[in-house]
């Protein structure tokens, strides 16, 4: 058991991949060569898709966007530990989780382009729409966990959020519920050190975020969030704990938000360039690439092929999202209630005949 070996109160952090890309055999998650390459390809795709979203925003083709550069190991490593029957409640900076769980990239772009249809999860995927009000999705994940427990379904529920979320009341209330009801939840905090301009030190006086779990009566563990194998190993174990009925786990994945908070933000205004440079050296993709090299699973040709495939996939998703016609007036109305009340029908009819129609 990894989780019990690493005490957050003593500042211990789970790490599987060392500086040279070598892995710790006792902690390394069991994965086939194909799985290892698949994880890497998902990280490559996530980065390509994320950087494309930023470009599209700069070109006016996509709205304000929250980039995830630097967090690919957290996102892909977390999601890779889950199966189809599990449920996921992500926050707004989690493209890698979406892609790993099989969410169509075109839909993800569509949402950020300003069309709600992009947040309609395909049938068969238990993936909640990303939450923008910070920490507000954590209680939902506990509700799903409680539901699974009450209905005796052997599944796990994952919820992701940032370090800023741990200051919110909903974080506390949700983890407290999870502890009391021993729900099958896996809470993964991507501690990327910054909540817009507010550093981690201003969010909590706790030495770690992981240790907060102890107060709720369940384990917490800190993990190197730029080490995809460490994230996967710990999240996988937490998922098994949850499925076995051993209750929730809080995982603090230490990482760094390499980009701005959103495309509307300028991080140079509040954080030191030296800090960013320091974290650049810990790039999660380069780190995992080194591991694959050590294992003989990576070469320049493989990389070239991956990059080309990712670029193609991204371009296809962009064209698909951009070819979706703008929403009709009905689309804004019909999902307010199961059945539209007369006043909404009346308001819709009035809108359709108004000078606003045809403006989009």
């Amino acid at each position, binding site marked *: 058991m990894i989780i019990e070996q690493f005490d957050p109160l003593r500042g211990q952090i789970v790490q599987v991949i060392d500086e040279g890309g070598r892995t710790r055999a006792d902690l390394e998650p069991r994965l086939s060569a194909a799985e290892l390459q698949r994880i890497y390809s998902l990280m490559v795709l996530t980065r390509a898709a994320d950087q494309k979203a930023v470009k599209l925003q700069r070109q006016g083709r996509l709205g304000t966007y929250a980039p995830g550069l630097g967090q690919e190991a957290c996102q892909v490593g977390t999601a890779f530990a889950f199966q189809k029957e599990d449920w996921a409640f992500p926050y707004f900076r989690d493209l890698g989780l979406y892609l790993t769980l099989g969410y169509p990239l075109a839909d993800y772009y569509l949402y950020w382009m300003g069309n709600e249809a992009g947040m309609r999860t395909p049938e068969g995927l238990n993936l909640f729409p990303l939450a923008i009000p910070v920490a507000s999705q954590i209680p939902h994940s506990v509700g799903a966990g409680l539901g699974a427990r009450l209905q005796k379904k052997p599944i796990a529920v994952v919820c992701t959020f940032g370090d800023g979320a741990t200051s919110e009341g909903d974080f506390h209330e949700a983890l407290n519920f999870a502890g*009391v009801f021993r729900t099958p939840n896996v809470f993964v905090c991507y501690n990327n050190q910054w909540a817009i301009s507010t550093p981690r030190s201003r969010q909590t006086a706790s030495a770690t975020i992981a240790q907060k779990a102890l107060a709720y009566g369940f384990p917490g563990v800190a993990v190197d969030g730029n080490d995809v194998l460490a994230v996967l190993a710990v999240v996988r174990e937490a998922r098994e704990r949850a499925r076995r009925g051993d209750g929730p786990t809080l995982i603090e994945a230490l990482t760094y938000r390499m980009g701005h908070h959103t495309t509307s933000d300028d991080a140079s205004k509040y954080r030191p360039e030296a800090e960013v440079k320091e974290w650049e050296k810990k790039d999660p993709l380069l780190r995992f690439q080194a591991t694959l090299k050590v294992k003989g699973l990576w070469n320049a040709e493989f990389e070239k092929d991956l990059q080309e495939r990712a670029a193609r996939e991204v371009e296809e998703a962009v064209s698909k999202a951009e070819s979706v016609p703008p929403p009709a007036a009905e689309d804004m109305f019909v999902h*307010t209630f199961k059945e539209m009340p007369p006043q909404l029908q009346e308001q819709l009819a009035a809108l359709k005949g108004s000078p606003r129609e045809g403006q989009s």
Partner: protein
Amino acid sequence: MIATMAQALNMALAQEMDRDPRVIVLGEDVAQDGGVFRITDGLLHKFGAERVLDTPLAESGIVGVSIGLAAFGLRPVAEIQFMGFIYPAFNQIVSHAARLRNRTRGRFTVPLVIRTPYGAGVRALEHHSESTEALFCQIPGLTVVVPSTPYEAKGLLASSIRSEDPVLFLEPSRLYRAEKQDIPEEPYELPLRRARLVREGRDLTLIAWGAMIPLAVKASETAEKAGHSVEILDLRTLAPLDEASVLASVKKTGRALIVQEAPRACGLAAELAALLAEKALLNLEAPVLRVTGEDITVPLSKSEDLYYINSEQVWRSIQRLMEF
């Protein structure tokens, strides 16, 4: 059987839990204690600890967790102990419960009922007497229901639990044990989004809901003796509003009086008055009048009688309208 509103609500919960194994009850003190108003009394014994859950003392948590339960496939009925304590859950209600259907284009829905006692008139502590229903009536996607009799309470709660949309179910604490009524023992539903004609009349339409209904009835009886025929509409569902029933009645009588326990500014009465101004102006024989609470903080018990609307006040407004 003869029942108070409290008993009628309890019966509705038990019957819905019997009918649908997905229905569960959760909240503070709802299990062993049966709720501070005893609305959930006996449910723990009947349905067990996996369907009747005492929760930690955390309103946002209760509603947030219920949203997850509902989206997962259960039909949670959450109790917020008093409406004065619902505000920590406001974000969950507004940002998630009410809009999840829309923001996922129907993929995830929240069939959740949030029950909470509300209103003044029971000499309660501070923060236990407010009527802030209007705060919730402007939230798209949220249904706000208020019963006014035991019969209504049972049928409306059953319909709310069966609704596919989130319902805020406001229970007038003043009416929990105010009257007993003979109600059917078997389960029944009453329609949401439909006002109830409490009594028919020709001269004036009195629109009210919740604990204002008994006052309206009393005032209408005084009016009857003075020769005025008053029609009373109980809104039952405050949002989305049954505009058709309101308009039909006022177009018939030509006069409208709205009685609202809540403060005046931006209350539901203002919305009703605007509706009548837009769609029934030419049918009106007199201005639309409102009897409402003042725009002040609900006082403690020593001032409650001074603060609380009474039937004499309602009767005087009827007179004003009839003499216009």
